């Protein structure tokens, strides 16, 4: 398999010195201004989930309006567009990015690679507080004159800064300021993830012995460090256009009959900058999910992940290719149409490594020993929604097929399936899976399964039919459709159905929260390694892991993290740090 670095005495050479840890002395520095990656992880995750719940409630408002136009008195066009904008922005940036990288990244990277902590613990702490500030500023826009931005999460100028847009007074300024801060905070965290993975691996933890979770988060962090600057400059420039009257993105225009002082700017330039960030962003969310789902499937199917090396190369290939496909969001934007050829080819090229990953997950199930635990169910739900959503990506990536479908509900259905539902299912699976390590207790399996079936089937029922309204031609971002001849009347019933399902899915999350809180105190004691998993984070001397993770001695790694059912081994799993067994081939 992977390279052999076991020396004569069977112990890999020392790669890193053990580090001197910062010791927290008070309750405040231990739990609030903590520099322990595990505490920071929980802070990140709780903040992301809290703001994510706001976005969830906003999605109900959107869906209620679409199903019962005008029936709910306080939802007018302003409120609707503000809800759509805040929902999209929060979900993509403040919820998903933060929970995957800030939450799971912080918790899992040091434990999985056998480090004591992130390499820059103080910067790590700062990254969380800046993120919290950014989130609060965004939330504050609900309390300023004019309310939050209603410019759409894509923020396209000139519309985003003109008066015909909800929230143009303050909302857009706060959103831009918040994004700028978010990126500052993220950069601090991202540098930590990258440097820690490169520099702080324990003895024997070669790159090709890292769990795919670490590979996914690592690659996503590198991509984010490259992609977020695009959004950063776009936000700064747009903020200047809005406040100081520069004209980076606004040409000479007439607004509501009045000449504005702008001239010479390019709205398309903004779109290039935005999507140079925006497309990689999809994979910044997806790659950690890919990694985590690989680990979930492997552990709960008691089988080594199939084609590990292919999986690593596929992650890297997807990471690199996804930096050159942003134009597929701009096929009908008025950019030079010749770019359509380039972006269609690169976009569809990503389908190949992506499909390879899917095949490898599925082939991992072949001749496995599948346990239908809650984490496994969520991983399976991910597979279906991801394949479904990935496939519709082939429609939208193939430039000519995108022409009729772009800006319709088909697009909304596609990206919710692939980057909304699929990663969220992985997040839930991952929480059920790692909860015992974090708290020392198990979550309730029965409640977990009920939660899974409602969430998975419900979300599928919301977004699968939505494709068909898109095929009919129903546009997205419409406050109300009105009477339109080309939309059959039956669409009304379908809209109501989707809304009811969305409400059910939303409320069913209460089961999850109940389970998570109840299990904190009343869950069954987990022990150190309840799933009998092979990767390093399950081999800590204490559970939950103490300060510095590993006690006196850092672990030594002898093999890859997928040592399940190795022929000749007595148990059906062999931890990464178990000394080589007699007759074992090095892996």
């Amino acid at each position: 398999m992977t390279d052999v670095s076991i020396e004569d005495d069977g112990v890999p050479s020392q790669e890193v010195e053990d580090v001197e840890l910062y010791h927290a002395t008070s309750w405040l520095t231990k739990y609030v201004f903590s520099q322990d990656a595990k505490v920071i992880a929980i802070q990140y995750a709780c903040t992301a989930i809290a703001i994510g719940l706001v976005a969830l409630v906003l999605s109900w408002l959107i869906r209620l309006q679409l199903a019962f136009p005008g029936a709910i008195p306080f939802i007018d066009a302003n409120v609707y567009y503000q809800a759509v904008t805040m929902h999209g922005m929060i979900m993509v940036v403040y919820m998903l990015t933060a929970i995957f990288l800030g939450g799971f990244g912080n918790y899992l990277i040091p434990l999985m690679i056998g480090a004591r902590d992130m390499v820059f613990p103080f910067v790590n702490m700062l990254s969380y507080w800046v993120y919290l500030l950014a989130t609060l500023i965004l939330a504050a826009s609900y309390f300023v004159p004019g309310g939050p931005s209603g410019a759409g999460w894509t923020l396209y100028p000139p519309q985003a800064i003109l008066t015909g847009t909800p929230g143009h007074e303050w909302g857009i300024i706060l959103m831009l300021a918040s994004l700028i801060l978010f990126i500052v905070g993220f950069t601090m965290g991202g540098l930590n993830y990258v440097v820690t993975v490169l520099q702080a691996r324990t003895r024997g933890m070669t790159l090709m012995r890292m769990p795919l979770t670490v590979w996914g988060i690592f690659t996503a962090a590198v991509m984010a460090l490259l992609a977020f600057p695009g959004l950063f400059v776009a936000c700064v420039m747009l903020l200047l256009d809005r406040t100081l009257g520069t004209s980076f993105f606004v040409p000479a225009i007439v607004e509501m009959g009045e000449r504005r002082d702008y001239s010479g700017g390019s709205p398309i330039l903004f779109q290039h900058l935005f999507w140079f960030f925006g497309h990689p962003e999809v994979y910044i969310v997806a790659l950690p999910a890919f990694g985590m789902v690989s680990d979930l499937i492997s552990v709960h199917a008691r089988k080594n992940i199939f084609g590990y090396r292919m999986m690593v190369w596929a992650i890297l290939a997807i990471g690199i290719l996804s930096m050159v496909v942003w134009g597929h969001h701009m096929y009908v934007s008025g950019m030079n149409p010749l770019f359509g050829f380039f972006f269609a080819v690169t976009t569809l090229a990503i389908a190949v490594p992506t499909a390879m990953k899917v095949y490898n997950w599925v082939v991992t199930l072949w001749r496995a020993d599948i346990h239908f635990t809650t984490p496994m169910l969520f991983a399976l739900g991910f597979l279906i929604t991801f394949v479904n959503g990935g496939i519709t990506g082939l429609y939208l990536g193939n430039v000519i097929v995108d022409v009729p479908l772009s800006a319709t509900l088909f697009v909304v259905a596609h990206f919710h399936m692939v980057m909304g539902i699929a990663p969220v299912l992985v997040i839930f699976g991952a929480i059920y899976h790692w909860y015992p390590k974090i708290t020392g207790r198990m979550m309730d399996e029965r409640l977990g399964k009920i939660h899974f079936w409602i969430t998975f089937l419900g979300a599928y029922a919301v977004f699968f039919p939505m494709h068909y309204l898109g095929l009919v031609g129903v546009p997205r971002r419409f406050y109300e459709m009105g009477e339109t001849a080309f939309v059959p009347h039956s669409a009304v019933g379908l809209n109501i159905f989707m809304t009811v399902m969305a409400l059910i899915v939303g409320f069913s999350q209460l089961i999850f929260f109940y389970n998570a809180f109840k299990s904190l105190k009343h869950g069954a004691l987990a022990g150190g390694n309840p799933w009998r998993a092979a990767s390093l984070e399950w081999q800590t001397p204490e559970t939950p892991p103490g300060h510095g993770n590993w006690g006196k001695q850092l672990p030594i790694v002898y093999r890859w993290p997928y040592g399940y059912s190795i022929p000749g081994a007595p148990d059906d799993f062999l931890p990464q740090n178990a000394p080589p067994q007699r007759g074992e081939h090095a892996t």
Partner: protein
Amino acid sequence: MLVAAIMALVVVASLLFHFLSPWRPTQIASNWGFIDDTLALTFIVTSIGFVAVVLFMSYCLYRFRHQPGRRSTYEPENRRLELLLGGITTVAVILLLAPGLSVWGRFITPPEGAMEVEAVGAQWSWSFRLPGADKHFGSTDVRFIDTANALGVNPADPRGRDDLIVANGELHLPEGQPIKVLLRSIDVLHDFYVPELRAKMDLVPGMETYFWFTPTKTGQFEILCVAYCGIGHPQMRGTLFIDSDSDYRKWLAAQKTFAQTRKAEAF
């Protein structure tokens, strides 16, 4: 096993939904049947993939579910299988791309002699301009925009005097004639969308964009704006009439030229 069965059922239900649901693309009314064909091809290729992957998964879930004494097989990789799967996927992708790109090539090259029409978007209404008798548009600039000259036609440009200005959001076009639509916005991004045509394109302030099509059916079609353009976005509607030749000529004769609209304003 229940899980395997439900997962397989999700595929079956999806396929049933596809074939039984009443929500189908609108009747096409332009030459872009190629787009529909590429869409159909994409559906076939991708559905085969979806069904195969999920049914295989369901089979594994059923066949390899945990039972007492079961142990999985240790199989880190299988070069041949991976190459085979990668190869099949590559072929499928090429199968989708090749026709897609060739149709895109046609989409971006309007035929010689296509009739030119201009569609202008402003928050939140559509206006149109036809080149008039001289077959040439007069130049435009936002500097010239005022209540009497909503489209900003240059009053000093002689080619613009006979341009026909259609300000009521109703555009008439003759059937069977290739049309090149020139798109211009005077404030924010808009997007000209008629579902029955399949073709669409953004209107970008500060530049001119285009697309082309040949209408193939007479009738009346809704024009929507599908680039979010502010609070009135969904109300930005227009109507496209595809007329027989004689109807079209009748309509054309009733339109006002730029010069006429200016004179009317002068009184």
